């Protein structure tokens, strides 16, 4: 914020050093550098609060009635016995109110020869909990795609996660510096002046930031905590010879199961599920991990659902897989481990019921708006009608269009591709994902051909049209259109259509605002004397002087 920095200079031109001035400056630059990534992380992260719902929408042919956890676990294990009895580990996610299918990940036993290539990761298996048969549905990444993009950014491991972490720490520093910058935080809360150019963008940025400030701070910090083991592994190294020991301490139960190489039939899973439900006084088992199935050293870990607890790391009970003997149960964690677990839980929001979940989504949208308005404020502050824009200004403006106006169209394209591609097309899941990036980056490139204002209008308009198209295409390509969903009381599909319509209205409103002739804002401050439009190193210059 060059303005603030300038104001800080006294009559003799000496820069005063104060926390507010320096924090305003750093807030501007941190926010700008990380803004585009943060916008994408906020938007896709917000969508991820509906991860299972998006997956269900993207497989409209799946219509599964709920069954008991015992039954689901039995059919899942029976299926795995059929297809991969010798694997090293099965991880089975039992269905619940939100996810109707059983999801299974399996890991092949690694070749004992250390030089052998690692076996490739197997794709997720989805089975019908009633029968244990693989779900016959179109292949799709579903809500998992937005979720993964939210913290991996579709960049190869581990760089995507590092970049997301960098953006998050910038965000954290931007929040702290932003709070210090705003001395009038409660006044800002009630101030929103429309149609006043730069002042309006500042108001919008303040309102969206302040209204949900605790949420923004919480979601940023807890987001860093989700990947703390990768970002900050050093405290573990100082206290443990083997990092795995710390992991055991976190999960509260140590699985010492070793592969013995002696065959032994796997104990029936049904009684174990009944037993843990009883021990948890009705708490729902969510995850079943079978290590070394059909071996004498087999173990079965059953973890409790975190849908009813704030701590994302629920209780776990460990059984012998050959005898069914209860080996151990997780101990209640200490304060710090519990804190970390609650932080995880707060970030992912699995504990949230429908009302709280929608609140999460609205707050996430506020975060998206905060980042978006902050990006626009940067350009609004530096726009001069009389001077040819300098390169950095043009770059920021074009990146703003490419992110704020074009990413929504990309996300809509992902959903549209799901409906428009033939259901049995080979490799369609990857084509859906590709559709998002081709649309997003394609439109961003295309927007370069238009003058700035026309580009905003066109891209926001296209994004709005893409979202508007989703309910229509859904109605044409499936028998689960809006009216059919209402008629059969299918709240999920009906709400999905309504959310798509709301997105279209929101983006359409943006396009309409962008199309209004720019009003000459009455400057609150006296116009400044002509000076170079960018003053980034001004503090450094006074330093150097």
């Amino acid at each position, binding site marked *: 914020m060059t303005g603030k920095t300038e104001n800080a200079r006294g009559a003799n031109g000496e*820069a005063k*050093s104060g926390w507010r001035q320096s924090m305003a400056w750093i807030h501007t630059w941190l926010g700008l550098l990380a803004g585009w990534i943060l916008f994408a992380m906020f938007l896709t992260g917000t969508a991820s609060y509906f991860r299972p719902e998006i997956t269900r929408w993207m497989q409209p042919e799946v219509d599964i009635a709920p069954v008991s956890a015992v039954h689901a676990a039995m059919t899942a294990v029976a299926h795995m016995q059929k297809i991969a009895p010798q694997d090293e580990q099965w991880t089975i996610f039992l269905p619940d109110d939100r996810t109707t299918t059983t999801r299974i990940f399996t890991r092949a036993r690694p070749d004992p020869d250390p030089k052998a290539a690692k076996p490739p990761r197997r794709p997720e298996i989805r089975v019908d909990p009633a029968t244990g048969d693989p779900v016959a549905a179109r292949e799709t990444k579903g809500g998992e795609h937005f979720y993964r993009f939210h913290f991996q950014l579709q960049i190869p491991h581990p760089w995507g996660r590092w970049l997301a972490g960098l953006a998050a720490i910038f965000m954290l520093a931007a929040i702290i510096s932003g709070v210090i910058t705003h001395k009038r935080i409660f006044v800002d809360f009630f101030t929103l002046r429309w149609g006043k150019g730069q002042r309006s963008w500042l108001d919008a940025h303040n309102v969206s930031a302040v209204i949900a400030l605790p949420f923004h701070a919480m979601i940023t910090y807890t987001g860093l*905590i989700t990947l*703390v083991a990768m970002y*900050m592994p050093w405290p573990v190294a100082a*206290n*443990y010879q083997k990092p795995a020991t710390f992991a055991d301490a976190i999960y509260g139960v140590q699985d010492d199961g070793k592969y013995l190489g002696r065959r032994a039939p796997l104990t029936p899973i049904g009684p174990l599920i009944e037993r843990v439900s009883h021990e948890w006084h009705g708490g729902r088992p969510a995850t079943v991990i079978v290590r070394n199935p059909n071996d004498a050293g087999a173990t079965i870990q059953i973890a409790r659902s975190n849908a009813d607890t704030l701590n994302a790391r629920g209780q776990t009970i460990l059984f012998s897989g050959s005898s069914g003997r209860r080996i151990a149960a997780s101990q209640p964690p200490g304060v710090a481990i519990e804190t*970390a677990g609650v932080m995880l839980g707060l970030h992912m929001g699995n504990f949230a019921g429908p009302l709280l979940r929608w609140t999460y989504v609205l707050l996430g949208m506020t975060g998206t708006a905060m980042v978006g308005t902050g990006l626009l404020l940067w350009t609004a502050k530096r726009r001069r009608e009389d001077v040819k824009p300098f390169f950095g200004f043009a770059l920021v403006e074009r990146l703003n269009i490419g992110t704020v106006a074009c990413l929504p169209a990309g996300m809509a394209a992902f959903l549209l591709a799901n409906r428009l591609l033939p259901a049995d097309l080979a490799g369609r899941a990857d084509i859906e994902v590709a559709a998002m990036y081709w649309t997003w980056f394609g439109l961003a490139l295309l927007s370069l051909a238009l003058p700035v204002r026309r580009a905003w209008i066109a891209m926001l308009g296209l994004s709005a049209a893409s979202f508007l198209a989703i309910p229509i295409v859904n109605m044409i390509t499936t028998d689960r259109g809006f009216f059919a969903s209402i008629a059969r009381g299918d709240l999920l599909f009906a709400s999905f259509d309504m959310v798509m319509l709301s997105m279209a209205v929101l983006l359409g409103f943006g396009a309409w605002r962008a199309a209004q002739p720019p009003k000459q804002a009455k400057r609150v401050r006296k116009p400044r004397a002509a000076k170079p439009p960018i003053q980034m190193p001004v503090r450094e210059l006074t*330093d150097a002087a």
Partner: protein
Amino acid sequence: MARTAAKKRSGAARMTVRSVTALIGGYAAAAGVATLAARLLPLDRAEATAWGMILSFLIYALFGLWAFHERRLLMIAPVIWGAAVLSIATAFALGVRP
């Protein structure tokens, strides 16, 4: 004109040093301090480790912000890099918690 250009160049160089100090030095210092805390806190091993990890990002953010608040580069660079070297060296000297 030439003097302004030279000033600008020197300003850019100083800004680069400042940014690297904040970004990399700040991370190293935060990692060192968090690790040392995890190693020395008189708590259960797992608890001390978790506190170190949880607080590390706050320490990082504060180091980073201070690196841009304090105007004297000759102040921030020695303090941040010094804290990093000192804390990491101490953590190595102490070794893994017995």
